[in-house]
């Protein structure tokens, strides 16, 4: 691998964090940041590579979480529940994607917002099953062939492992016919078509893979935090996920991870700002969009940067 020394360094750092701190707060925050990173990596398939606006990612995240919670509460083994969650999310992505992926920009944006809102309303009002706005409590924990991880640190290692897998899969896909075809679809749909790329299929595939990433993260969320409620997967969260992608750098795998980590941890570091925090958050995002088109990825990337080339 080209950048293996860096990767090794990052991996060693990630694995040793729990040795440096036994702090539940830090580890729990990292766990949530890692889950966000997985969701944003998924969003990157749709928006970063294939160029489709998707404000439904938080809803897929939620669908994954609720499917897992319900399946495990129903008594399904954890492994089976996680697969059923992936299935549910993949089906939902098809239901949304098939009729709507031909739409462009603000029309697609609105459709995905609408989808997310409909999913949220169903969760809120299907109280007997979903627990409504009070959410679902006492969700069974992770059960990996009889091993039940306990405490934040054990969960942290599971999350890191899944994130690593998500990154490897993303990197593999990026450097395959599929990844190149996705980026070609974004850069010029017509040129991609005329080079033999079925762009509609690519959009759908990106949408589905992205949703599955969100579904897996949702599954881990439900089984590790063991409480879910609709407000964690709302439209506001979808906007935050999107800003993580933009701030990290659209299309860049390390950018996605960096963006998710930064924007999950930063709010905590800036808690002292109180109500001013969100004002500065919004202004910061605007600033990054205007001044740093490549996002954090263009700062952290070890490869040659391409400044000033808005996508």
């Amino acid at each position, binding site marked *: 691998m080209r950048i293996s020394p860096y990767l090794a360094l990052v991996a060693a750092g990630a694995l040793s964090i729990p040795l440096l701190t036994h702090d539940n707060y830090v580890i729990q925050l990292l766990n949530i940041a890692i889950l966000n990173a997985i969701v944003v990596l998924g969003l990157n398939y749709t928006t970063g590579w294939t160029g489709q606006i998707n404000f439904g990612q938080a809803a897929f995240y939620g669908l994954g979480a609720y499917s897992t919670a319900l399946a495990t509460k129903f008594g399904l083994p954890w492994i089976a529940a996680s697969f059923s969650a992936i299935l549910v999310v993949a089906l939902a992505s098809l239901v949304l994607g098939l009729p709507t992926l031909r739409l462009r920009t603000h029309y697609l944006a609105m459709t995905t917002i609408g989808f997310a809102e409909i999913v949220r309303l169903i969760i809120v009002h299907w109280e007997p099953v979903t627990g409504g706005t009070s959410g679902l409590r006492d969700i069974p924990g992770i059960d990996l062939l009889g091993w039940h991880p306990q405490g934040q640190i054990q969960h942290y290692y599971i999350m890191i492992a899944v994130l690593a897998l998500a990154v490897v899969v993303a990197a593999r896909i990026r450097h395959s016919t599929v990844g190149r075809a996705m980026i070609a679809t974004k850069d010029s749909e017509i040129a991609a078509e*005329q080079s033999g790329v079925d762009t509609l299929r690519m959009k759908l595939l990106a949408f589905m893979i992205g949703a599955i990433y969100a579904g897996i993260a949702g599954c881990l969320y439900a089984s590790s935090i063991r409480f879910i409620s609709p407000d964690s997967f709302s439209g506001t969260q979808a906007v935050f996920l999107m800003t993580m992608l933009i701030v990290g750098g659209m299309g860049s795998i390390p950018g996605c991870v960096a963006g998710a980590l930064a924007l999950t941890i930063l709010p905590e570091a800036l808690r002292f700002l109180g109500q001013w925090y969100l004002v500065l958050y919004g202004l910061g995002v605007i600033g990054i969009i205007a001044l740093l088109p490549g996002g954090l990825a263009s700062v952290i990337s070890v490869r040659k940067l391409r400044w000033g080339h808005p996508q």
Partner: protein
Amino acid sequence: MSPAAILQARGVTRRFGGLVALDHIDLDIPRGIVQSVIGPNGSGKTTLINALSGASPADAGSIQLDSREISGLKPHRIAQLGLARTFQNIRLFANLNVLENVKVAAGCRSAESLFGIVTGNRNHRRTETAIDEAAREALHTVGLIHRADDAADQLPYAQQRLLEIARAIATKPRILLLDEPAAGMNMTESLALLETISRLKSTGITVLLVEHNVRFVMDISDRVAVLDFGKKIADGSPAEVQSNALVIEAYLGRRRRHA
């Protein structure tokens, strides 16, 4: 249908609102030749390429590629069946490097499973190697192999045009549609381009060359068709076309009636 024709168009018509951009165009392109389509600005040349390649399908008419009807097919299907094209206003993939731009096209017929990609199994590695080789070969053909790792949009203009051609030939086409490939090139670059086209022809690819610049196509073309106001006004050898009065008028304009 003449058995030798690789591409046959019959009555291809395209309207934009009230404007008839292509008016019942018939075209027979024999296998293995360089066929040019020329015409003044706005005569319908690019519209013809868009119609043939499916980018902006014809409203009426039939198009057959090697006796197979391709009108109405999606552009990517047409590309997979062996019709490739370049764009007059260059459309490269800005977020991919030069080699990857070509790889997109080189992989157009390889059906890879996601499972294979993710696990990196032997089948996948074999496909990737084949794509890599094909893409490098295409870059080699147009003389861009030394820029394989550069960002596509950092290339100089003429090389961007060559990259478009490399991308098109990486689909292993039976017929290659070139839309004004020399636009914006200087003399040396144009000559090099002509050489590349001859080389492509010698490998058995049929070329449909759309050009505004008549001078450019004369030496290389086996046949030349001329469009004016969306109609085909001439079709024949370069010499025939060059001396055709209708063609001269279409290009230079008619003298004014009272002049």
